[in-house]
């Protein structure tokens, strides 16, 4: 006698679907954290409302939705100098698939320099230090030990410029505006303390630091913030990839290589 097979299911607190009566693979209705997505939210909720609800499980206040909407604009395009966008363009100029361009942007935009991992670390720093300048100064002067992981070791303070000589204008503009509309305390505190923090870190707050403060003000956990940051930076990568795909590889720089260990030169 064979044992009856256990019916394995995917468990979720996020998404409920009711099937069509004649096809259980087609959804008749869908609810997101209890809200009827296609019957009620569609036409009333905005993109930012949907994003907030997906990750936090509750509808945002108007102030929270406005901040997430503004942050989405801030992060949407790093421009062609951004390594993540550069990676997407590298895909497109060779005629690679759209998905590979975005995967390239995600991979390069995931790391400790300007990427999702930096935002996660910066959000962890907010959890650790809060709004206490002395705690930040201690954190920046003696960073916590890192566990062995697949991630390369940290080379600069998360949320601060790696190579900047001062706060970049667009970072200042973003921080100033986002701080003015944030329902949370961190963006405003970051704006007020930016000079003291820059002194402690040895460099100014970066866009990753602004994003981390905004995401923390919105109540996201670091892991949620990392995911959202990865998502929100994709639009620009996609647009620039499409542009370079049309322009073609002959217009795309190949750059110069100085080979320091060349057997051809040795034998010449």
């Amino acid at each position: 006698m064979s044992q009856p097979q256990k019916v394995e299911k995917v468990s979720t607190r996020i998404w409920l679907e009711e099937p069509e009566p004649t096809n259980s693979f087609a959804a008749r209705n869908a609810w997101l954290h209890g809200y009827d997505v296609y019957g009620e939210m569609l036409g009333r909720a905005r993109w930012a409302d949907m994003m907030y609800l997906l990750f936090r499980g509750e509808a945002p206040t108007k102030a929270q939705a406005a901040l997430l909407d503004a942050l989405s604009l801030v992060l949407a395009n790093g421009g062609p100098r951004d390594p993540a966008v550069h990676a997407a363009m590298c895909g497109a100029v060779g005629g690679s698939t759209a998905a590979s361009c975005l995967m390239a942007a995600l991979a390069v935009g995931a790391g400790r320099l300007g990427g999702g991992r930096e935002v996660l670390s910066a959000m962890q720093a907010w959890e650790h230090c809060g709004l206490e300048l002395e705690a930040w100064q201690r954190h920046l002067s003696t960073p916590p030990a890192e566990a062995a992981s697949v991630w390369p070791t940290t080379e600069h303070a998360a949320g601060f410029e790696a190579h900047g000589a001062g706060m970049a204008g667009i970072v200042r503009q973003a921080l100033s505006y986002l701080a003015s509309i944030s329902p949370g305390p961190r963006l405003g505190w970051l704006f007020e303390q930016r000079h003291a923090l820059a002194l402690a870190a040895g460099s100014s707050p970066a866009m990753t630091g602004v994003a981390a403060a905004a995401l923390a003000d919105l109540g996201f956990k670091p892991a949620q913030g990392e995911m959202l940051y990865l998502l929100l930076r994709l639009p620009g990568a996609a647009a620039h990839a499409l542009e370079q795909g049309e322009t073609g590889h002959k217009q795309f720089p190949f750059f110069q290589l100085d080979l320091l260990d060349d057997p051809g030169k040795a034998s010449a």
Partner: protein
Amino acid sequence: MNGPQHLQDAVGRWKSRMGGFFPAEQRTVFRGHDLHADLKGMGWLELCVFGITGRRHTPQQLRLMEALCVFTSYPDPRIWNNRVVALAATTRSTGALGMSAALAVSEAHIYGRGNEVQAITFFRDTHQALEAGTALEACLAREMATHGRIAGYGRPLVNADERIAPTMALAAELGLADGPHVRLAYAVEKHLLDNGKPLRLNYGGLVSAFGADLGFTPREFYLFMYPVFLGGMPPCYIEAAEQPEGSFLPLPCERVDYQGPAKRRWPL
């Protein structure tokens, strides 16, 4: 302040000791060697390992490295990383997208690269500490405090590993079974079992110990192990692609167990 001078110095040029492609001269340099002349007799795995380490390995060592890949190439599409490949096939995406994503997914915490990078770091550090007179108990306590686990022991689905015996048999045949880190790996297993912790050495732990005995640094070993699951993935793609689209493990609505909030009205 760090300043951008370092970046300014690197604009438009890359200095490399690793290699380069010289189309006008019809040659390619790979770590100081002409790829198509000096290295033309190399096997693919040998070239990969040379690219990672810059070091040459014996035929016995390379045979073991190849076996480490062979013994963990499972064409089972239920396994999480392989499932990505099969899902890509059933949705009629490309094989490269599916397998690239699956290899990225293999950089997991509880298996794959995340497990191994901690395990090889632990074995190397512990071997050094034991040589310096530290007790194994203290090393294990430090590892638990740092990482919250002893990576390389236990297994997500079952606490035994069918890959261990054939790997050890081959290593013995090649004269490579008795390195200090492999001996340490078994000593740790014995210590855990003797102290009431039913955590057996898993394959990730064993290969990491071999990696340390083969002289890999954690980063070298991490890069070497990147494609280790690849062999099992194309079969997953092929079989799912041969079946009608969408028919790989489809989920009807009843197979999703909703545990979230009750239905409610959208407030905005």
